[in-house]
């Protein structure tokens, strides 16, 4: 039997007995879902799949409602969008979890520090270096001079001392440079477009490093005889041996970056470069230099702070040229982000810069959180080294220090539906987040699964999965209402649970509440 319905005003004929979602899919319309799992009974809970029936103005969960004759469905108006966003706002207000660790959000280059730490702790130094170099162009340099804002954000400091992230990073970088052939990142095939970078300081080097990877021909202009800018000419040798800088610059040269040194950089050079190159990145530091056509105020160039695009659309300005007095790591971060903007510009896309994905966060740590955090960390004290130590960590020290990391990030950060949808719908976690939150819990009792109840959005998928597979004991909703939790019935340590379904549940959990303990070993950059 067939039914006549309307989808966003268009008349459609659909089969009786299918869900609204299935009908929409046939029409090429994708509706987000979290609690829905094909093949299991309908049990709508999350309500992000809401659509509207215009006849009644009712909001309906499309994943589990069958189409009815005459439905006049709206899937994309402002109200439906707001309803879904509201569902997400509410879910996030009860989602005590953080996608990214505070050290990562504290790092201007947004480096995935916990991931590096896990690899270092396992002795996978080359893999660790790849994680580092995804975001940081000159880690061996920064591993010596960085003021390490990440360590100021490190949660471990509420227990004792922060993890010595800076030296850990340095170890990964030095270990790599000690190879006969240090790691060279992949470079995309040439796009045929050329970019000039003015200034070979930390910002310029970083911009060059990331632009070349994106397939652009990059030429760096600098007035000094050697690349490095302030790194070479202001930082004392005992803090930063210049061979280290040379080695990291060499890698860039091997990648294809051309350095034109001892260049005069008069005010009209920019206009000349603009003619020769498709885009120009200005990274001249706290110089008094002026460039024709580029607007400057109080000795700084004026740019869009998100994209670094200047008043000239093909010119991007980064580093101390726009914000004087900032540390090298910020300049390096600018280089990475500007490369993204330039890429967008040269591809003819809207230039939006490095837009970071939504990050769930709950703010300060509570005393009651300590146990959960320490459950994955070594409780030994920080291995101290004097500032600007010539010697970094030994192999034993690096493993031991890396083990101190509490892994504040989320195991599901890369494939969390809640995060992806929150990002898409611009959900606001702070909107309803309570002042007194629940303390974090992490349960490893049911290995190979780690369960973090405070992240659970009560979708019920794992309960359905364990039921379907008739797993012994299974999982159950315990309690009701706001305080409902998913847990093992008769929570008795002696029982074997989720023997058949651990992996399935971890796979289908729409957020990071149920994850495989070991999924942190998955290394995307493995050789």
């Amino acid at each position, binding site marked *: 039997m067939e039914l006549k319905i309307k989808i966003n005003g268009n008349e459609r004929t659909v089969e009786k007995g299918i869900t609204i979602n299935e009908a929409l899919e046939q029409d090429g319309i994708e509706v987000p879902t979290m609690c829905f799992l094909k093949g299991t009974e309908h049990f*709508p809970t*999350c309500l992000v799949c809401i659509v509207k029936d215009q006849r009644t103005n009712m*909001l309906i969960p499309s994943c589990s*409602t069958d189409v009815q004759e005459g439905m006049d469905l709206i899937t994309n108006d402002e109200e439906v969008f707001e309803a879904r966003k509201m569902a997400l706002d*509410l879910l996030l207000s009860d989602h005590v979890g953080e996608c990214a660790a505070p050290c990562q959000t504290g790092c201007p280059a947004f480096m995935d520090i916990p991931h590096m730490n896990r690899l270092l702790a396992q002795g996978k130094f080359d893999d660790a270096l790849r994680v580092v170099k995804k975001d940081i162009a000159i880690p061996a340099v920064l591993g010596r001079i960085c003021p390490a804002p990440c360590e100021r954000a490190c949660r471990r400091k509420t227990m004792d001392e922060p993890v010595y992230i800076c030296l850990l990073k340095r170890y990964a970088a030095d270990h790599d440079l000690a190879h006969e052939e240090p790691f060279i990142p992949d470079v995309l095939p040439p796009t045929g477009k050329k970019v000039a970078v003015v200034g070979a300081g930390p910002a310029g080097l970083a911009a060059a490093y990331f632009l070349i990877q994106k397939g652009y021909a990059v030429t760096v202009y600098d007035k000094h005889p050697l690349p490095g800018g302030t790194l070479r000419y202001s930082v004392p040798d005992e803090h930063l041996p210049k061979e280290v800088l040379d080695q990291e610059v060499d890698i860039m040269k091997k990648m294809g970056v051309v350095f034109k040194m001892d260049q005069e950089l008069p005010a009209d050079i920019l206009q000349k470069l603009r003619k020769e190159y498709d885009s120009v990145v200005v990274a001249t530091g706290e110089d008094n230099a002026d460039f024709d056509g580029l607007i400057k105020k109080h000795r700084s160039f004026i740019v869009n702070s998100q994209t670094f695009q200047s008043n000239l659309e093909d010119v991007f300005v980064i580093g101390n040229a726009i914000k004087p007095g900032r540390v090298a790591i910020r300049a390096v971060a600018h280089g990475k982000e500007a490369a993204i903007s330039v890429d967008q510009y040269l591809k003819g896309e809207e230039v939006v810069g490095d837009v970071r994905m939504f990050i769930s966060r709950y703010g300060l740590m509570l005393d009651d959180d300590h146990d959960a955090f320490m459950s994955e960390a070594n409780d030994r004290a920080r291995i101290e080294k004097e500032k600007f130590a010539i010697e970094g960590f030994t192999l034993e020290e690096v493993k031991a220090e890396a083990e101190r990391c509490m892994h504040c990030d989320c195991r599901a950060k890369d494939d969390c539906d809640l995060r992806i949808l929150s990002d898409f719908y611009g959900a606001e976690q702070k909107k*309803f987040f309570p002042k007194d939150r629940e303390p974090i819990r992490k349960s490893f009792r049911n290995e190979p699964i780690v369960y973090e109840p405070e992240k659970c959005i009560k979708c019920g998928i794992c309960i359905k999965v364990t039921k379907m597979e008739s797993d012994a004991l299974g999982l159950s909703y315990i309690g009701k209402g*706001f305080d409902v939790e998913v847990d093992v*019935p008769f929570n008795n340590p002696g029982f074997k649970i989720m023997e058949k379904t651990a992996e399935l549940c971890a796979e289908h959990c729409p957020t990071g509440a149920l994850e495989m303990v070991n999924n942190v070993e998955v290394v995307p950059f493995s050789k």
Partner: protein
Amino acid sequence: MTEDHQIVLEQILQNYDGNKKSVIPLLQTIQERYNYLPPDILQGVCKQTDITPEQIMGVASFYSQFRLKPTGEHIVKVCTGTACHVKRSNLVHEALERELELPPGEETDAKGKYTLESVNCVGCCTLAPVVLIDETTYGYVNSEDVGKIFSAFEYNKGKETVRKKALSNGDEYDGEVRIALDSCCVASGTEKVMNSVRAAVSDSGMNVKLKRVGCVGMCHQVPMIEIVPSNGGEPTFYSKVGPDDVKQILHKHFTPQGILYKLKSRINNFIEDMQTDKTWEGIEQYHLDVGEKQVTSFMGRQVQLSTEYLGTLNPLDINEYKLHHGFFGLKRALTKHTPDEIIEKIKASGLRGRGGGGFPTGIKWEMLSKQNSDIKYVICNGDEGDPGAFMDRMLLESYPFRVIEGMIITAYATQATHGYFYIRAEYPKATKRIGEALKICRELGYLGDNIMDSGFSFDIELFKGAGAFICGEETALIASIEGDRGFPSLRPPYPVQEGLWGKPTLVNNVETYAQVPYITRNDLEKYTQHGTETSKGTKVFALAGKINNGGLIEVPMGITIREIVEDIGGGIADGKKFKAVQIGGPSGGCIPYWMADTPVDYDSLKKVGAMMGSGGMIVLDETDCMVDIAKYFLSFTQHESCGKCTFCRVGTKRMLDILIDISEGRGKMKHLDELERLSEWTHRGSLCGLGQTAPNPVMSTLKYFREEYEAHINGTCPTGKCQGLITYSIDQNCIGCTRCVQSCPVDAIPFTPYKTHSIDKETCIKCDSCRIVCPEDAIRVN
């Protein structure tokens, strides 16, 4: 499992099929035995039956009746119903915590003697605030008295020996003594009064008949007895009778037999007085002649259909019911009408569902009758969960046969095959009465095969709920009977299409069924003359709160709120000013005094932001804080949310967070907009009626009393109810009597006899004890 437990489990399991369907009754039986659910027994159940751990724990942790932790010897329950709340049961609860010296988070005292629990409305709203210890109910409790409750309980424990042989023999009586014995009356001490009647009759040898009748509706006057002389004289009511008053009353009407009896009774009395005059009854009791205007007017404005023959029927006397038109409606239906004719008549009567939604009953029936199925169910929804509502309890307790008759007629009209009573856990008496009534009906052929020789067969099963407000929602109720957590499910399919066990199912409210026999028995006009164009007939309300005459009333639809409050309710108690009426409980709203001429019918109530609901009507006076009322209802729905859908589970919680902030002085003006936005989305986005209507109390108070919210945000609670915003002090009226000093549980008032006392604001916990005991009204709350 211990051997003991193993043996008990074996015994228990003999009475159940070991499948999902029996989870709830099985758990109830286990809990009856142990007062909680021992985990090893639950695991044993899973091993020995088909019930899975997921099912048993899911159910055991969902319903509030079930306890997963052992309790003390006795269970102390504080009623959290609306009437109790407005009479400050929260202070009583806090006082009980102090009395039992419970550390935060603990429910059982250190000796393991008492466990303190909050319970949803127990339906004795006119006695508010109410505390129960095991089966004993204490009414009008204030925070000052909690110690006395325990002494009274300890004193009376094991003493309730009933002298049953007391009644005189023979058929010739000088008259009849009628006593109402429903929950309200029992709670107020009627049982003791009845024992006194028995004792007095036995001691004096008076020739009178004692008769138990159903609720008479005047709950504010109980314990009440009615003396009906056999010589045809006028009956006389006595209200608020104490056990000690009985003798005097009886002696006034009837002559004792001989002097010997008198002598004997005097000696007995003397001993008894010595033993009992120090006990605390918990309830102030005094005489009141019923001839007084108040009570007459209270009865006079009402129209009794559901409560027809109020106060004359012995609830379980089927012959008496038959003498009062009982089963006439059924007989007429079975013998003179086809099922379709009945449906047509119900449609024509304009009867709408009395459970709150107001869906036209006849149309629902028609939908069921059109379903082709070998099995069809008819369910009576007796899960009356609204705090402050006790109509259904009273109907089930006092008119069990009428409700059953209504269900049989419904089944005949829709050609249903099986019936269920779903009655909430908190109504043990109603459950018991219905159980007995069903048995009687079966024995006399009103249920079972070939009812009244009509060829129509139908039977009804009784299912006891386990304490979950959400189970008043029909799909959740069905899930509950099926042995699941009370999660509502999406409609369509509607229960009339696919309901219990996947079969077509009709769910109607108790009161809806109670109206049916009257409609089928009489000509249509007799019913339709009552009510308005769109809301026909009568509605039973539980009138409580700050009113002079609280209790159960049945009024024609369309009567105004003012008529109910002033003419029937006798106005506001204690000479206070009328502020608002809360109608419809947690799904309803507050109607302000300036809209008191609003007629009470489905559509008018909806228009003003309230809702008929099941019929709770709480009258509020000038001392009631509207923010507090909104917070009260929202905490109720938030707590009762099943937790399935995001908008209800989290939305109600976040709304409550904001209300708590406002009531504790952390509110900001922008919160009011946020509250409105959350209300709107919780209403629109929730999957079932609970979440959709949960914002109503907030929205209606915000609409009519916004300035009160603003006052809280600016730092004052105008009525002095919100503890976070008030301070206690003592003014110049103080005579230095030190009573407040003695009553203060935290020593916040220094001992300064004959001098004006003072309160240390830092130490004060705002328990209100000082204000209660102060003889000079010298305690100020600002």
